[in-house]
């Protein structure tokens, strides 16, 4: 078993290399592709020989650079949150979107915007944290998340119920609030990365650093807890404390991702499984690799969304759902839904 683990760890550098290469290629593609295609030499010129009067240069620097950065950061946040949730619940289907954490953040953000007239992302990211935390706690208790290894479906059902309620509530608030709220959140509620600006990028970056660092420091403890609560206790861990801190990191990561890009599902489900296929179950490699892969996934979804219904755009969250749903079904069919 030790050799197996060692072998898997030795494959981690390969995973990082592939992930980074894919990210670079996708970033280049996302600069070039859109309702107004821009050839790559022109993209290069936008950075090397910037002309403020050139429309194409403006599009690349003002619109597409923040958008690509946001996709990578939000994806990374969702991927890490998904990995932590799968580790804590030992449930291969755990994910911030499916379990209603993103829905909670969305509800809080929309309520904050409707009640207090907030418009800046730096303001409503706090509501995102709050909503993600509340929804996460509710689903964890309702679904008995810490015993989810024994009854994996219960957690999913609790999440589905919560998502239905929160989704309907978000629609109701948006319908009944003023026109400016409708305008702000119409694209956002579908999970769109369009026109979020650099403020969203910075907010997400800060949250990713804090939440990601917290998750990474927890990784060894989560590895130990994967063998079960009593085994973890015997190894000298405090399961409750670790669960609490893990939930805090999920709250920061998923709350910020939802506040900046809207509720996006399935990215946090797919990326950890891809990463696990490369490195095996060690959370120390799984967390950064999932973040890298998830960033690539969301960026891919965003690029597809720009092409598939051109000249209109499809929000990245919707593309992620259409592509991620079949993967979910695959996991349901493949795994014996017992323990991870």
């Amino acid at each position, binding site marked *: 078993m030790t050799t197996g683990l060692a072998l898997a760890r030795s494959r981690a550098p390969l995973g990082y290399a592939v992930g980074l290469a894919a990210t670079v290629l996708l970033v280049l593609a996302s600069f070039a592709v859109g309702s107004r295609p821009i050839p790559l030499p022109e993209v290069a010129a936008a950075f090397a020989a910037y002309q403020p009067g050139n429309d194409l240069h403006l599009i690349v620097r003002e619109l597409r650079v923040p958008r690509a950065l946001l996709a990578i950061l939000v994806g990374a946040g969702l991927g890490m949150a998904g990995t932590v949730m799968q580790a804590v619940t030992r449930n291969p*289907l755990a994910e911030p979107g*499916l379990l209603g954490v993103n829905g909670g953040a969305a509800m809080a953000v929309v309520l904050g915007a409707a009640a207090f007239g907030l418009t800046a992302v730096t303001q409503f990211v706090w509501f995102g944290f709050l909503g993600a935390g509340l929804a996460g706690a509710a689903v964890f208790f*309702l*679904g008995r998340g810490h015993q989810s290894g024994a009854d994996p*479906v*219960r957690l*999913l*059902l*609790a999440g*589905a*119920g*919560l*998502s*239905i*309620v*929160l*989704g*309907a*509530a978000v*629609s*109701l608030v948006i*319908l*009944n609030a003023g026109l400016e709220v409708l305008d702000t959140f119409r694209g956002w509620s*579908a999970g769109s990365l369009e026109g979020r600006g650099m403020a969203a990028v910075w907010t997400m970056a800060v949250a990713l650093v804090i939440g990601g660092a917290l998750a990474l420091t927890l990784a060894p403890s989560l590895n130990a807890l994967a063998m079960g609560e009593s085994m973890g206790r015997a190894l000298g861990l405090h399961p409750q404390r670790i669960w609490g801190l893990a939930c805090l990191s999920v709250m920061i990561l998923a709350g910020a991702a939802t506040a900046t890009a809207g509720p996006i*599902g*399935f990215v946090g489900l797919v990326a950890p499984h891809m990463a696990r296929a490369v490195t095996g179950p060690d959370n120390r490699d799984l967390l950064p690799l999932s973040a890298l892969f998830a960033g690539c996934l969301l960026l891919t979804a965003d690029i597809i969304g720009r092409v*598939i*219904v051109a000249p*209109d*755009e*499809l*929000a990245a969250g*919707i*593309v992620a*759902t*259409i592509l*991620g*749903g*079949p993967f*979910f*079904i695959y996991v*349901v*069919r*493949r*795994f*014996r*839904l*017992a323990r991870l």
Partner: protein
Amino acid sequence: MIPAGQRLLRLGGCSLLWRPRTLAVGAVLLVVAGALALALLGMGTIRLTPDRVLAGLMGSEDDGMATRIVRLLRLPRLLTAAIVGASLGAAGAAFQSISRNALGSPDVIGFTTGAATGAITGIVLFQTGPTETALAAVGAGLLTAFTVLALARQRGAGGGYRLILIGIGCGAVLTGVNTMLMVKGGIDQAMAAQIWLAGSLTGRSWSHVGPAFVAMLLLLPVLVVNARRLALLEMGTDIATGLGIHVGRTRMVAVLAAVGLTSVATASTGPIAFIALAGPQIARRLTRAPEVPILTGALTGAVLLLAADLLGQVAPFRLTLPIGLTTGLLGGLYLMVVLLQRDR
């Protein structure tokens, strides 16, 4: 021997087992539905007193305005609500029995979303009218049902829950497809589809009542006839086969009838959550009977939908409450209550 709590009725060569409590519950539900209907017919921009409502229903010549309002505007809406509620309640009872799970309703399994996909495809890509839209919804609902059933049928764990999880996955994908179709369509069709998706009883005419009524007339008896076989199926495939039940055929017939009811209901009003989930469960609790609550479920479903419609009309602060969203909100809460109750 007659089981406890049941009576036997003999008519020549035919005999019928009936249960006084079930009959009483059914009567009470009918009365409640009647009261709700009277209230709904009287309410609106122009309020009508109960006697004017009755005069309008009778089509009296003296009160032409009441006749027009009741017969042309409010009665079709009311009948659509009642028929859709009843269809969803009966279909939900059948689905829950087949999946042997209190949560196995068509909304959770994703059939409702599939029917919506068909309807939106019709509206957006082919600019269909109400009848073609209904047909498209039925076709797509059936297709989704078969896909989910086929995917859930493989070996592996999860049992009845597999069906639900696969349904959740398919429902998510189809929701995404629905949004994509709406982005793809022109702004007018997208608006029509958006309104349709929210689930609404507004502006239902006799052309909506017709198909839903015919479907109920044809498919509800199929479920009623099969109710006893379904109840035996709940004991497990082996026992049911031993008792002389053609398991595969019974299941297929019941699924087809239930999917048909759900699809036509969805085609008439747009997706309405919660009714198929909660109707049969509430009926079962009221009657305390072990049978599959097809008819009582249908009655409860009708009462629930009429009550939700009334709630939407008397909502405070001029809130806009599309009926599909109201029921969605209540349905999700109900799902969580069911989960909490399992702890005991």
